[in-house]
């Protein structure tokens, strides 16, 4: 139950930061990828610059988390599916000008075509799930913890 509240709170804060930074706007993503405005690159870089050293420090101290056991960071080796998935993701990201979290904020902001983009993302994920049953590779990364639970 507490974990659900944590999830809700972090979703609200993450969605809030994305919305306040206008990352849900097609124009923001498009002008970033066209190198017309570098703010989003700086945004991502500064988020990593803040989190990477802190995570490194906490992992080294063997931190116990209250709801997830000992802090364990993921260090997977790059494989073929990472490159393939990343390449396709980038093409879609550039065309749709959005990605999974900002697409939801697009909907919040009253952008009606997010009602096309969000189902599209669900369809893309579902196509992969169907292929998985045919023995294709399962993603790890962020999806690692439920590889065993989804049928």
């Amino acid at each position, binding site marked *: 139950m507490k974990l659900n509240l*944590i*999830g*809700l709170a*972090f*979703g*609200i804060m*993450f*969605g*809030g*930061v994305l*919305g*306040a930074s206008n990352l849900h706007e*097609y124009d923001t993503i*498009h002008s970033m*990828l066209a190198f017309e405005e570098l703010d989003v690159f*700086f*945004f991502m870089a*500064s988020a990593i*610059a803040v989190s*990477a050293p*802190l995570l490194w420090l*906490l992992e080294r101290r063997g931190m116990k*988390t209250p709801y*997830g056991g000992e802090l364990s*960071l993921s*260090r*997977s080796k*790059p494989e073929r599916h*990472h490159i393939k*998935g*990343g*390449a*396709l*993701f*980038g*093409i*879609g990201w*550039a065309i*749709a000008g959005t990605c*999974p979290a900002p697409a939801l*904020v697009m909907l*919040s*902001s*009253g952008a*009606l075509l997010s009602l*096309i*983009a969000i189902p599209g*993302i669900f*369809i*893309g*994920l579902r196509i*992969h*799930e169907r292929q998985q049953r045919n023995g294709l590779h399962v993603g790890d*990364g*962020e*999806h690692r*913890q*439920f590889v065993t*639970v989804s*049928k």
Partner: protein
Amino acid sequence: MFDLLPDRLPWFVGGPILGLLIVGLFVLANQPLGASGAYVQTSNLLRRHDGVVIWRVFYFAGLFIGGVLATRVFRTGTEGVRSGYDALREVFPLGVTIPLVLGGAILLGYGAAVAGGCTSGHGMCGTAQRSPASIAVTITFMITAIATTFILRAATGGAL
């Protein structure tokens, strides 16, 4: 509704806040602040699968609620609806814009599933963990996204 937020939060404020959120979710629950996984869980819940990671569904709803707060409640002059793709609409008719957005979204959803994460899961959280796989994914999607943007620009004669 309330005029509390600037037109756009500068990157040097938003980026570090997001960095602290990434750390916060790891510190509390040992989990990455990704988004595509939340779609997977929400989809599993809607299809009544077993073993749904329910907090990811709460997180999915939270993203929407946070977006409402940032784009509507704490800002003024953002009432009403719009397409969200005015730039595309200026170049293409709606009959092209809709398949383009749908196709792009399917590609990015599929790509995120194959790679095991998206801009947040691999691009920021994975890179912050110094995961070689996440760094490889991030470099790859940056390259193809930038290339796609310039191809679209060339194909539309610079209109996009």
